[in-house]
């Protein structure tokens, strides 16, 4: 079995995790920029982080024969301070030249505040100005439905943004149709305690189709499972889906989305 882990925060994970991913068949990981679990004190902290995910982490992944790609932004949890956010966003254009950068992300909303929305709009403008793909984080729990609607409106306000080059991640049953009906890609995040379980993700494939969707672990420093994608593959097999179907969901689909960047090497 082969697969792509299209959303993983590998800077938070150990080499044992890389080994487990490789042994499960992982060929590439996609690492969006995210919250470190605490608010960084300055743009310099982000500069170092961007260097880590563009320079160091690809080398660590390569030791396990895994390709490493990343996305750049200041995450919505740290967007409440527009001054800091703009200092960080000013760093992004230079880093876009790095060979493993696929786009802008994971941008989005957290508590659906006015400042978060303003900084989201400015990130979308960066993507538009630099012809970048976009990876979107949607809010947690009770904030997800409202945030997803606000994010979709913000994206559709930019007429040059092509929905087929945008993935809106962490969808659940109440938001997946909103995302897919407007031509965006939808990411389903498999978490032990929130977001969706493997069986709910498979249910969504049955209800909403297999086009423009991927599954990811979004593994990070919190309660999360870096092997949740291959575990979902096992659940698909238990439910009677064949190897070709599973390969489409966990390899070909993410490869199709990421392959819209000429930098993506697994065609």
């Amino acid at each position, binding site marked *: 079995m082969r697969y792509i882990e299209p959303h993983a925060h590998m800077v938070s994970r150990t080499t044992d995790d890389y080994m487990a991913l490789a042994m499960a068949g992982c060929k590439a990981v996609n690492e969006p920029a995210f919250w470190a679990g605490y608010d960084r004190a300055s743009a310099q902290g982000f500069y170092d982080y961007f260097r880590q995910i563009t320079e160091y982490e690809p080398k660590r992944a390569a030791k396990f024969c895994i390709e490493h790609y990343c996305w750049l932004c200041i995450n919505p949890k740290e967007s409440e301070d527009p001054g800091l956010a703009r200092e960080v966003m000013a760093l992004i254009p230079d880093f876009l030249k790095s060979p493993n950068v696929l786009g802008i992300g994971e941008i989005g909303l957290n508590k659906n*505040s006015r400042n*978060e929305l303003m900084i989201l709009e400015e990130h979308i403008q960066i993507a538009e100005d630099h012809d970048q793909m976009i990876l979107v984080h949607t809010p947690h729990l009770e904030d997800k*439905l409202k945030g997803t609607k606000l994010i979709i409106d913000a994206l559709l306000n930019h007429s040059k943004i092509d929905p087929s080059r945008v993935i809106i991640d962490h969808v659940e049953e109440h938001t997946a149709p909103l995302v897919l009906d407007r031509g965006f890609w939808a990411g389903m995040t498999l978490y032990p305690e929130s977001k969706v379980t493997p069986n709910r993700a498979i249910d969504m494939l049955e209800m909403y189709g297999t086009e423009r969707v991927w599954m990811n672990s979004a593994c990070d420093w919190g309660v999360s499972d870096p092997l949740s994608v291959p575990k979902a593959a096992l659940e698909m097999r238990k439910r009677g889906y064949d190897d070709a179907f599973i390969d489409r969901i966990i390899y070909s689909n993410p490869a199709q989305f990421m392959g819209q960047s000429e930098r993506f090497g697994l065609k």
Partner: protein
Amino acid sequence: MPGNEPNLVDLGFMDARIKLIDIAAFLDRLDRHGQADDYRIRALRKAFSELDSKEPGRASRVLGALSDHTEEPIDAADIQGAFGAPPESN
């Protein structure tokens, strides 16, 4: 749907049974300790009616019952986390 469909009741019944009993025990626990009067528990109780619905789309409607349905951005984010159910003023 897969060509070789297994018995989904066989696959999922025990898991659903465990979760249902766990919810019942959770509510008993809250009663025993006098902590059932919480907006999150009231939101859960409202969502329970969907479990007995005959209409498909139960998961989506449960999620909807536990969602903030306001439409305007809030003025400022004074916290970073979420609680699983919206404040009752929403």
